[in-house]
C-alpha cells in the first residue's frame, strides 16, 4: 500500500512550527488573529526585528507561537513592557498581545496612558467578552445580560455598567497620527488589513497603534459552532461596531 504524503497546511513563515499545533481550544478565534499577524509579519519583512509580548490569560498561549523574539509579562503589564522595549530600541517592532481583561481592566491605566503619550507600539487586544483562561468570568466587555461565572444571572448594567468600548475611548485620547480600529475574526481580509495598518503605522514611526479584534470562546460561552458564530456576528458585532476609527492612511474603512 502506497504511503500517503502528510498534508502540511500553509503556514506563515514567521510561525514557529515546533509549537504547532497550537494550544488554543477548538473554535477559539486566537488562531485566526495570529494567522493574520503572521502573514503581515511575513509580507512586511519584519520577522527578525519583531518583539512579540504576550499578556497573561489565553493570549499567553501564544508565547512561543512565532519564530520571533518574544517575552511573557504579567496580567495587564504587556503594554509597559512593550513601551520599555520600544523606547530603548526604536528600531524594533513591538507587538503587545492581550485580552480584554488584560487591556481594559487590570492594565487599563497602562493602555490609556500609552495611548495619551502616543507610544509607538502596536497593541492587539482580543475581545471574547470574558476571562477565558481563568474559567469564564465577567470581563469589562461582557454584554448586558450575558451569563458568565461571575455574572451567573446575566450581566446587570445597573450593577456593573456597560461593556467597555475600547477603540472608541482610545480614539478620543490619541492624536491623528495614531491608528485605532476594531476588527473581527469573521472578516479575515479586513482583520488582516487592519493589523497590517497597525504594524505599518509603527514602522513609519507615526504613533500609537491599536486593534481590538472580536473573537470567539465556545469553551466558556458553552456554545456549539453555529451558536458561537451567531453570538459573534449577531450579538457582539452590533454592540461593538467594526471599522477603522482613526487612521493616518486615509479615510476610515467601515
Amino acid at each position: 500500500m502506497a504511503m500517503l504524503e502528510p498534508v502540511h497546511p500553509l503556514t506563515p513563515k514567521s510561525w514557529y512550527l515546533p509549537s504547532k499545533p497550537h494550544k488554543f481550544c477548538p473554535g477559539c478565534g486566537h488562531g485566526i488573529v495570529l494567522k493574520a499577524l503572521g502573514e503581515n509579519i511575513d509580507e512586511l519583512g519584519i520577522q527578525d526585528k519583531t518583539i512579540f509580548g504576550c499578556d497573561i490569560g489565553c493570549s499567553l498561549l501564544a508565547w512561543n507561537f512565532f519564530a520571533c523574539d518574544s517575552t511573557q509579562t504579567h496580567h495587564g503589564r504587556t503594554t509597559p513592557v512593550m513601551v520599555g522595549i520600544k523606547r530603548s530600541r526604536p528600531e524594533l517592532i513591538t507587538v503587545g498581545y492581550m485580552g480584554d481583561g488584560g487591556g481594559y481592566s487590570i492594565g487599563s491605566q497602562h493602555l490609556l496612558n500609552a495611548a495619551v503619550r502616543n507610544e509607538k507600539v502596536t497593541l492587539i487586544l482580543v475581545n471574547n467578552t470574558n476571562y477565558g483562561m481563568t474559567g469564564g468570568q465577567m470581563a469589562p466587555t461582557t454584554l448586558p445580560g450575558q451569563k458568565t461565572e461571575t455574572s451567573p444571572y446575566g450581566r446587570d448594567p445597573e450593577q456593573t455598567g456597560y461593556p467597555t468600548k475600547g477603540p472608541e475611548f482610545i480614539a478620543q485620547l490619541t492624536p491623528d497620527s495614531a491608528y485605532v480600529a476594531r476588527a473581527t475574526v469573521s472578516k479575515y481580509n479586513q482583520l488582516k488589513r487592519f493589523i497590517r495598518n497597525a504594524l505599518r503605522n509603527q514602522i513609519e514611526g507615526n504613533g500609537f497603534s491599536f486593534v481590538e479584534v472580536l473573537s470567539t470562546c465556545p469553551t466558556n460561552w458553552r456554545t456549539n459552532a453555529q451558536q458561537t458564530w451567531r453570538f459573534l456576528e449577531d450579538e457582539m458585532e452590533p454592540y461593538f461596531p467594526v471599522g477603522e476609527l482613526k487612521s493616518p492612511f486615509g479615510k476610515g474603512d467601515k
Partner: protein
Amino acid sequence: MTGNETAAWAALAAGAEVMFGYPITPQNEIMHYWTRMAPKYDRGFLQTEDEISAGFTVCGSVQSGKKAFTATAGPGNVLMQEPFGMAEGMRLPLLAIIQQRGGPSSGTVVYSQQEVTLTTFGGNGEGHRIVYSTATHQEIYDYIIKGFNTAWTYRFPTFILGDGYQAKMREPLELYSPEDKGIKMVEPYPLIGLPGHIGEDREPKHLCNIYSLEEELYEVVMKISAEYEAISPELTEYQERECDDAEIIIVSHGVVSRAADDAVTALRAQGLKVGCFRPITLRPFPAQELKNCIQKSGAKKLLIAESAYGQLFRLVRQEIYGETVPMETLFMPGVGIIDYDIMSKIKSML
C-alpha cells in the same frame, strides 16, 4: 550635595542609559536631577503612569539590552513588587533605588527603615535579590555604580536601599568616573531583539515566566536558588568594629549604623566593651560573618537597633539561627536613632 543628587550622578557615571520613574517622596530629586542631566548626556527618561508601569518599563528596557533603572519609596515600593517579581523570575538585571519612608500605608514622607522586609523578601518569590543598605552619600555613589555591575554580572534584581534622611541631607563626597578608579563597567547586552536572521543564523528567543507544570517551575526555582546560593559568599559585605573583645555587639544597618559607630566610640572611651556589626548586604545576609563575630568575642548580648519594629531583628534571628546569645532590641519605627539612644539602651543592658 543631597543623597538624591548623588544617586543621579552615580547612575550617570555608571553608564545608565534610561530611567523610568514615578513621583513619590522622598526619592523625587533623583528624577529631578536625572531629567536635567539626561538630554546633555544622551540618556533617556520617562515619567510613567504609576510605579507598576515604571517597574515593567525597566523590565522591558533591560530585556532589550539597556542599562535601565528606577527609584521609589513606600507605597511605590509596594506597587513595584510585581515587576520586581518578574525580574526575579526572568533573571532581569534591574536596578532600583529605594529611599525608605515611614509606613505602614502612606505613613510619612520623611524617613524609616521599614522597607527592609519588602525590599529583601517582597513579592511572590523567594527573595532572590541583592540588597545593599547604604549609610553615607559616598556609599550611595559607590554602591549604585557597583550595583549596576552586580545586576548585569549576576542578573538578579539589585537594590540600593537608602532612606529619606540619606535622600535629603547634604554631605560631601567624592564623585569619580569608574574607570579612574579601575572599575570596569559591565556592558549590557540584549536578551531579545538579538542580531541575525531567525531560522538562518539563530533560533528565535522566547522568554518565559509561566510554566504549565509544577515540576517545570520547581526545576527553575531550584536552579535559581542554587545559583543565588553559589554567588552569595562573593556578594556579602559587612563592617565590624571593636568586636574582638566585645561583651555587647550592636547590630544595625544603613544610616543607623553611623549612630552605632558613634556610640561604640563613646562607650569605649568610658571603658565599656562594646562593638558593632553592620550588614551592608541585607540580601544575601552576612550570616557567617556575624556568627564569627559572636563566637570570637564571646559576646554576652546583641543589641538590634533599627528605625523599624523588628524587620532587621527578624532577618538577623533567622540568619543566625542556632546562636544562643541573648538579643535585646531598640525599635524606633519611622524615627531617627542617634548615638545617645543607643548608649542609653546599652547602659540599661549592663
